[in-house]
């Protein structure tokens, strides 16, 4: 039995979240529902009112398209490699900056610059630097005698995904550094002093104390980055357009939707991207037990 006070608190709680729920339904629920609906139709973008329900035909078509699977593969490779590198690099830099090195305030500010730049801008900068004829990177390589002629970084299809990963690492490692640094700074200092007095060598301190205590933070950071990477669009699109060598799932969906005007198939692809990301998110959250860590770890 609920008391009247409990019911009243319950009601006022609902009242407080109501505006948020309305906004969420408007900006997320409605578009999502529309996309789901269109994914079951044969609609075209230029005349979306004129359509019939076709069941799961669109999903079957996308699943049968080798270009879709290429995009899935690209996205998976991109996500796995870039997040792995960003995590290791982010951890290393965070540990370095966390230590009392001279001028670390400046270093911290400088590290944030790539993260603060718009993706399009940094991608264009790198595209120019990696230009096969006029790029400063090739100039340096040839100038140092490392190669006779420049490398076609962006034009070469087999290198393209590597370049995308490289630029993403350059751009988003600061984000990792920042998150991990925040995690490092809330670890109690006395634990490390205790280890210092106990004569624990630095590698054992890192492996047996820092990393286990930092695991929840790293987990959250990886979760953020994986979800972000799985829906990556801007970087690859600015660099390579719909080039199949660097096509991500999001670019595939956009390609079908805008270029081919296939609203139904584009929606089906978008829905698949959404479901895939949702599954990965649920899996990671489950693996990290993020939802319960508050209750069991503290």
């Amino acid at each position, binding site marked *: 039995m609920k008391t009247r006070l409990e019911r009243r608190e319950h009601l006022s709680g609902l009242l407080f979240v109501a505006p948020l729920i309305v906004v969420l339904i408007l900006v997320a629920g409605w578009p999502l529902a529309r996309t789901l609906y269109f994914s079951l139709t044969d609609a075209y973008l230029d005349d979306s009112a004129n359509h019939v329900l076709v069941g799961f035909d669109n999903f079957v078509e996308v699943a049968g398209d080798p270009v879709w699977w290429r995009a899935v593969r690209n996205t998976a490779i991109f996500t796995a490699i870039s997040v792995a590198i960003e995590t290791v690099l982010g951890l290393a830099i965070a540990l370095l900056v966390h230590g009392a090195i001279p001028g670390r305030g400046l270093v911290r500010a400088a590290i944030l610059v790539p993260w603060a730049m718009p993706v399009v801008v940094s991608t264009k900068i790198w595209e120019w630097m990696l230009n096969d004829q006029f790029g400063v990177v090739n100039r340096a390589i040839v100038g140092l005698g490392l190669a006779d002629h420049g490398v076609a970084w962006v034009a070469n299809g087999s290198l393209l995904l590597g370049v995308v990963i490289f630029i993403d690492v350059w751009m988003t490692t600061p984000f990792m550094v920042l998150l991990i640094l925040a995690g490092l700074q809330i670890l*109690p200092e*006395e*634990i490390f*002093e*205790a*280890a*210092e*007095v*106990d*004569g*624990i*060598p630095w590698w*054992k301190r890192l492996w*047996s*104390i820092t990393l*286990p*205590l930092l695991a929840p933070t790293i987990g959250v950071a990886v979760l953020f980055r994986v979800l972000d990477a799985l829906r990556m669009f801007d970087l690859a699109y600015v660099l390579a357009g719909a080039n199949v060598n660097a096509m991500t799932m999001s670019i595939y969906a956009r390609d079908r939707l805008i270029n081919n005007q296939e609203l139904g198939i584009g929606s089906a692809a978008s829905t698949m991207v959404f479901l895939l990301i949702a599954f990965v998110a649920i899996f990671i959250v489950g693996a990290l037990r993020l939802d319960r860590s508050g209750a069991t770890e*503290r």
Partner: protein
Amino acid sequence: MASVALRSVSKSFGHVPVITDVNLEIADGELVVFVGPSGCGKSTLLRLIAGLVPVGVGDVVIDDEVVTDIPASKRGIAFVFQSYALYPHMTIARNIGFALETLGLSRQEIDAKVAEVAATLKIDHLLSRRPRELSGGQRQRVAIGRALVRQPEVFLFDEPLSNLDSDLRMEMRMEIAKLHANLAATMIYVTHDQVEAMTLADRIVVLNKGCIEQIGTPQQLYHAPQNRFVAGFIGSPRMNFMSVSANSSGAECRVQGPGNLSLDVTLSGPGSPAEIGIRPEALSITTQGQGKVTGTLERLEDLGHEHLAYVRIAPDVAWSVRLPNALGKISTGTSVGLDWRLEDLFLFGKDGRRLDHSLSHERSAAANGGRV
């Protein structure tokens, strides 16, 4: 086992001096307590000895070896933190044995040592738990166990009991005293709790603003404080003070102050008293007109085992009186007299140094043995 010495040690954080020219010799097997108000540098001094904070100027010597530039792990010390600083993700057994893992001992040897230490501290039933499942007192035992297992030459305790409630604090205090008696190890113990200091210490070091005010046995500090700071810091409730004026002719001196105070004392050294001090337990309440000063009884507190009375002597002077028995029929607001034996009187010069008078030798005698 080892002795510890500090030679002209100074330390600043930025431009803020924290420790100023500290010299200290601690004998092998001695238990020395650092006390002082918060911010006096006592914890910093302990960290300097541990090697957790680098020394600015001067030398730290452990077992006749200068260790100023030797890392904490090689100084043969163990440090017990106020926050316990247990590794939260490790079991109690691993917490205690963690330091041994890098010494190349076998699993069995480590387990044996951990079990032995755990048995000593009566925490053997907790070994498979994690720190968060333990109470504060149990965590403190684990922290001490972690220090014990390494068999250090010197134990350093940084306010180890201040996070415990008063019952546990008393229990752990006895525990540490017992430990010191059994191990005969050198221990340095930082606290702001003077009961801990008085009961545990072989010698107490009183610190104030980064300087040593006095080093001595608990009895010396209580009965023969060298200055006003030590006199006011040791003892609870604290010593009563009053500014006075003095007319001296030679060693004879007439001291006058609020509450109709007029005393004749014979100084046994140079200097002129600017302040007098009397401990609350040395005062007795008499009827008005008798006693050495008069004041108004402001408040009475019945603590069960003792009674505290507050007597206002002047607008800015209120003295506390500690009485073993209830005061009887005197009600608050009445005028009373305060009396004391002349040998219980402390005199302080303008610079805060204590001045000897003809009867203070009796106190010195008390400090170096039983009360006369």
